[in-house]
């Protein structure tokens, strides 16, 4: 590794960081309703996830603690958010799981291997296990996932739909 390669590498890194900075800025600004470089703390999760990250609620909670001011004001300042978020993107933390992992997760819950989950089953798992959904989250997921004729969630189709939406 020569000096030249090293400095070229550094240049590339700088460009990548600059690129991330611009991405983060745009995502932040869209929620900065007052145009004063702050966002409501309740939007931080949305902003992070819109940048492609998939933290759990617990991880999100810890991250918020990192970007909050010493005396939490209910608002997060851009100056504190930017370095933390850049680090996350550089280290590729909280990457979403691949599609097939998601499929297998549904299959685990569908122990009878029917290819679907009933509405009651899904509600039970999502609102009682793991990091439970709120009622609003549950209703929202059902409204898009459920097949009104069978009252079941055909998870393969559901996953395909979500993935197509995102691309």
């Amino acid at each position, binding site marked *: 590794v020569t000096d030249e390669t090293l400095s070229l590498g550094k240049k590339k890194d700088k460009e990548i960081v600059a690129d991330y900075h611009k991405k983060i800025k745009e995502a932040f600004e869209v929620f900065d309703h007052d145009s004063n470089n702050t966002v409501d703390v309740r939007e931080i999760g949305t902003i992070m996830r*819109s940048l492609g990250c998939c933290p759990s*609620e617990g991880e999100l909670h810890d991250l918020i603690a990192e970007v909050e001011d010493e005396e939490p004001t209910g608002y997060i300042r851009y100056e504190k958010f930017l370095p933390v978020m850049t680090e996350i993107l550089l280290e590729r933390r909280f990457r979403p*799981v691949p599609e097939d992992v*998601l499929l297998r997760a*549904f299959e685990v819950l569908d122990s009878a291997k029917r290819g679907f989950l009933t509405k009651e089953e899904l509600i039970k798992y999502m609102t009682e296990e793991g990091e439970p959904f*709120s009622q609003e989250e549950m209703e929202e997921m059902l409204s898009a996932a459920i097949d009104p004729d069978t009252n079941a969630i055909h998870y393969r189709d559901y996953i395909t739909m979500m993935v197509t939406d995102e691309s």
Partner: protein
Amino acid sequence: PGLYHSSTKPRDAGTGVLKATLIIQKWYRGYKARLRARQQYALTIFRSIEYADEQSQMQLSSFFSYMLENYADMCKEDTELVHRFLASQQCIKDRQKYVEFISVPDSYSGPRLQFPLSAVDIDYLLKGFMHQEILHARFVIEMLFETKKVLQQMPNFTHIETSSFEDITICGDLHGNLNDLLVIFYKNGLPSESNSYVFNGDFVDRGKNSMEVLMLLFANFLVYPNKVHLNRGNHEDFMMNLRKTKLNSSSYLQVYGRRILEMLEEVYTWLPIGTIIDNEILVVHGGISESIDLDLLHRIERHKVKSVLIPPMEVNRDHTFELDESKSSVSTTISKKSTSEPLLKYEWEQVIDILWSDPKSKNGCYPNTCRGGGCYFGPDITTKILSKYQLKMLIRSHECKPEGYEICHDGKVVTIFSASNYYEEGSNRGAYIQMCSGMPPRFFQYQTTWATHLKPLRQRVNTMEINAFRMLKERIISRKTDLTHAFQLQDHKKSGKLSLGQWAFCMESVLGLNLPWRTLSLRLVNKDKDGNVDYMSSFQDIHIKKPVEEVQSTVIETLYRYRYDLEILFNIIDSDHSGLISREEFRDTWKLFSSHYNVPVDDYQVDELVNTMDLNKDGSIDFNEFLKAFYVVHKYDTLKQVCITNLIFV
């Protein structure tokens, strides 16, 4: 929702199930957040374009100032033309002239009103409008006339007192959303002796039922003039309404439309500026400014604020001119016949500030560059002004808020917005406030939707996005020449490609829209594997229909871009309301317009185009046909039919 402390152990129902559940939950929350972000991006696009539109209307205002100021010079060249322009500001004095010859045929099955109005007439209107019936022009005009008479007796600010028995309901922008008004009346009761209302401006524009909303509000006002209070908004402005399409909801109105618009012009100017509740709460449409003088505002002749687009001329008395008496049988704002002085510029500005300003969290008071009118005022301004006049709160509207209302400046400023789904279905809720002396204000929210159930988030977001991007692409195509020029300036290697940053810079500077271009680029342009933008792909999938094949693209683009401004201008020139203007008038109007706006199109090219399009072949131009001929074609347009079923609200 569901913020979960990481140190609390989740219930263990078998590690396999637990892990699977966590995976799904994590994924879903990520997906939902990204949907919400897309929704926010779409909203940003809508808002940005809306404000840019308002700004360009302000540009029109400076054009009119330019015309008025150069009157003397233009006089020599074309008295006729400018006469027409000024003549449009005539006063309507005689009701007889307008109502006399309009008879209502027996075959008319819509609501029939009896003046003076009573509660029964309001009932007829409600039932009629709920069945999508259209009010006959005769009743519309009578309504406007009666409303004007009563409004003239109202002061600039109505002072209201509430008591523990009598509260008051405050509604914000309705923007022609009849459904929202019906929901409010349903949930909160119709106005009556014991049910007072304040409607805080912007009753019209954008929604489909501006006329119906106005008729209902005015009818209620006529029956309960001391209980229904109507404040003027920035859209209660005849210039803004000169885009015929906004008020048209029937063939009757097409025939009498111009007459109705003239009357509306007057009614608007007589709307009060604001209300003051219990000597504590100021209710105005937009906001305040550093220099606001409530005492002055109580005194000025409010009806002289014709339009935000017509500032008072700096009357230069030296520039007297001889108006041919036979031609000027009308009074103009600068005619020697006018009985009183026109409004002073700073008085006019005070009213504009009231109607257009927005609160911001930054201290200070500075011009509202986004909208082009009024100012931005910070919490320090609010504190200063409120304490100066011993007030406790400012309630205003003017800005669309996702929840229908918003509180800022430490609880001293409340924004109330009553038009739900303002930008797009699902974009926002509407709200109203109930106020009672001694109690904190109570907020009520709703959202009307044409569907048998509220659609899932992803569908609402998709709809919003599609429409937001349509609007944005129309902007883009209308500036194709300027954009291409800007791109090529940056493209030193002539490769047809630019970096993302360069492309974003060009888009922002040419379009003047402060948007997250990098994120939006995914939907707007093609990029290669290195992330470089093929900039001409900005114009793919859309083009402006050329009414005539041989015409240059720049001409088409320019006419498309300025079509709304031109519509306003032509409507003014068309003094006999025939929908037709002569070729000379068109030519002269275009010349004035293009010189002021610095349009890079040769006059002869426009002339050529008009010649080719002279559909009437008799030297006159049907300008509506002309302007409609320039429309945008979206390559993948699929217009889905929406099934109108039940009206529900949440």
